[in-house]
């Protein structure tokens, strides 16, 4: 197997170059077809917002194209000067390239370690290569294994545990309090852009209704229209809070809009369960003293960011075990691949020995015909087989144990020459 990887990631390529080198939409299929046509090899492209990587492979002994040829292809395809990208791209071959893909799929090489999107993107890259007919025996094996390594890392380590975006952490907290949402009311206070993503996530919970209030009635109506909610007058804020189960507050108010005393009055009027308040406004809209964890759970931006950082820190602890899994899987894959490659040669070697043994046995039988019983001939034939197995055990074991580093003359080649085994 000859595998070559040429690419760049957020670590080596600035965003402007990543944007230029991206293979989006129909570009991907065109590029895969062109790579196959130009270099006569298997190809796959992993193109995400954080990386662009081209994997080139050949199943036989013929070596894969030079890395510079691939850089040249990238340069011509995207019309970016060769010199501008050459220094920012990395290239890896064989085991190193396999390890890199396994690390990428397992999200060990991601901007946010443990993020779950990358495995899907690697799968998509593989499926695109399959659809374009550019994935052959090597890339099939490597990409399938990469996806299984990603799954193993995800299930056997805590690397993907928890959420790392503020809006996802906010929704996680909401889910810690509420079980079902078809009878829940979400109240959106303000029209801050910061809350847009959180509101999008909250809408996915399919609440019974969304109320929107703002100092400016026009803005309240605009936000309500966007989220299929109901606009409520600013003077009705307290009434809306009495009815709300989840509150998303994103006003630009310089002072808190809700003091503890005012909120106590609201709580006294409430008969509903715990209220979750996501105060993502800066400065804060709700007095932090409101939080009691029982009647009101108040989370502000600092709380959500703290969890985000805590999750990222916890993920760091799982990097080493995840890397150990990747190393183990690379070793296993290379070993299995070599065995698969050696298989036909070992079969031919065994067949050749069988042929020779049978020829010698036939001569022997012709020479001593009638002098030995059938049982004694069977015994001699068995002895031949045993001798053959004992003779072959050493060479076959040596082939299986051969170090994977590519050397000029491999043991396999030597054995093929020694035993006159033609390709």
């Amino acid at each position, binding site marked *: 197997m000859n595998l070559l990887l040429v690419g760049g990631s957020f670590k080596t390529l600035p965003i402007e170059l990543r944007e230029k080198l991206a293979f989006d939409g129909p570009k991907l299929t065109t590029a895969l077809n062109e790579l196959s046509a130009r270099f006569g090899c298997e190809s796959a492209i992993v193109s995400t917002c954080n990386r662009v990587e081209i994997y080139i492979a050949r199943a036989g002994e013929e070596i894969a194209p030079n890395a510079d040829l691939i850089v040249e292809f990238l340069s011509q395809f995207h019309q970016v000067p060769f010199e501008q990208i050459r220094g920012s791209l990395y290239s890896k071959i064989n085991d190193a390239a396999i390890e890199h893909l396994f690390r990428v799929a397992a999200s060990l090489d991601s901007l946010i370690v443990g993020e779950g999107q990358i495995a899907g993107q690697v799968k998509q890259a593989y499926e695109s290569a399959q659809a374009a007919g550019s994935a052959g025996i090597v890339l099939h094996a490597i990409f399938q294994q990469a996806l299984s390594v990603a799954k193993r890392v995800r*299930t*056997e380590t*805590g690397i993907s*545990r*928890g959420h790392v975006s503020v809006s996802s*952490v906010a929704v*996680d*907290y909401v*889910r*810690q*309090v*509420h*079980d*079902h949402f078809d009878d829940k009311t979400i109240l959106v206070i303000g029209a801050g852009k910061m809350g847009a993503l959180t509101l999008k996530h909250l809408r996915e919970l399919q609440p019974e209704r969304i109320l929107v209030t703002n100092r400016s009635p026009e803005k309240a109506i605009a936000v309500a229209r966007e989220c299929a909610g109901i606009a409520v007058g600013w003077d009705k804020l307290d009434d809306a809070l009495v009815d709300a189960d989840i509150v998303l507050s994103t006003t630009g108010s310089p002072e808190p809009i809700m003091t503890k005393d005012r909120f106590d009055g609201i709580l006294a009027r409430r*008969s509903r*369960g*715990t209220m979750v308040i996501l105060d993502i406004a800066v400065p804060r809209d709700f007095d932090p003293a409101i*939080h*009691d*964890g*029982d*009647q009101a*759970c108040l*989370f502000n931006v600092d*709380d959500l960011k*703290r*969890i985000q950082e*805590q*999750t990222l820190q916890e993920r760091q602890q799982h990097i080493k075990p995840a890397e150990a899994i990747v190393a183990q899987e690379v070793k296993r894959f290379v070993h299995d691949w070599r065995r698969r490659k050696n298989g036909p040669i070992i079969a031919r070697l065994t067949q050749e020995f069988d042929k020779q043994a049978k020829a010698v046995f036939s001569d022997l039988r012709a020479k001593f015909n009638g002098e030995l019983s059938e049982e004694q001939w069977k015994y001699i034939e068995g002895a031949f087989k045993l001798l053959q197995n004992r003779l072959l055990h050493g060479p076959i074991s040596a082939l299986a144990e051969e170090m994977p580093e590519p050397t000029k003359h491999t043991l396999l080649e030597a054995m093929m020459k020694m035993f006159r085994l033609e390709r």
Partner: protein
Amino acid sequence: MTSALEAYVREASGSVRDIMAGMLTFTERITVLCFAASYAVAFGVELWHLFQPRPILRIIALVLGGAGLFAHISYLIVNSLIGSSLPLGSPTGSLFLLALILAVFYVGEAIHHAKVAWAMFVLPVVLALIGLGVASHDPQDRVASWQSFWGIAHGTLLLLAAVGVSVGFIASVMYLVQLHRLQEKLAPLESLPNQERLLEMNHRAILWAFPLLTAGLLAGLALQANVGIDWFSIRILSVVGLWVVFAVLLYLRYWVHVRSRQVALWTIFAFVILVLALVSPHSFGQGVGP
């Protein structure tokens, strides 16, 4: 016990008898240690999962819990229903039966809600009930009243109420842990059900247990007509106390609308009284053989 078992097997015929004899030989070897150890190891595996989460550990814990459950059922069938050496109406029998129902609850919930760490909360209660059962075991314990209709009704209704109280207790403990996590704004956990679900679980358990408890008490009064009753025995006082606590709990929950935390604390208090009632000896028919 052995003679009773042998008589039971003798009544069966042919191959059925051989199979039953083989099964009895196997099940007779099951001891309290077998199922207690299974539950304890399942709990240990769940603890391991807490620090090194791997799906396989949850499966192992569930398999161990299932094995414990099988051993537990076999033990109760052989010793209580067939052998009658451990009457289910006795303190030990009641505690073992309650532990069994909670173990069924654990296995069921662990299958349906696999992400939740049920073993962490249910198995300690199961193990504690088994431990109390062993500690309060009296080989001479016989409950004659268990044989009468009112005795069976009284025992069954109170046991079912006890299941409700125990489930409410587990839900309350989980609720308080979740409450603490939310108060301290700790990172969200998948292995703990949300507050709303735990409160619903608690409320359902209370609503289920109260009528059963009341009916059980009434059946106990009916039983009084047949056998003497000591109104001031710890068991009677505990059961009456449990009923009063439940009445207060319902009043607080539905009339006063107290905070959920207080409801959870009252439920835990009710469970403590329940345990006291279960470990106390019977006030009627004590020492009378069936």
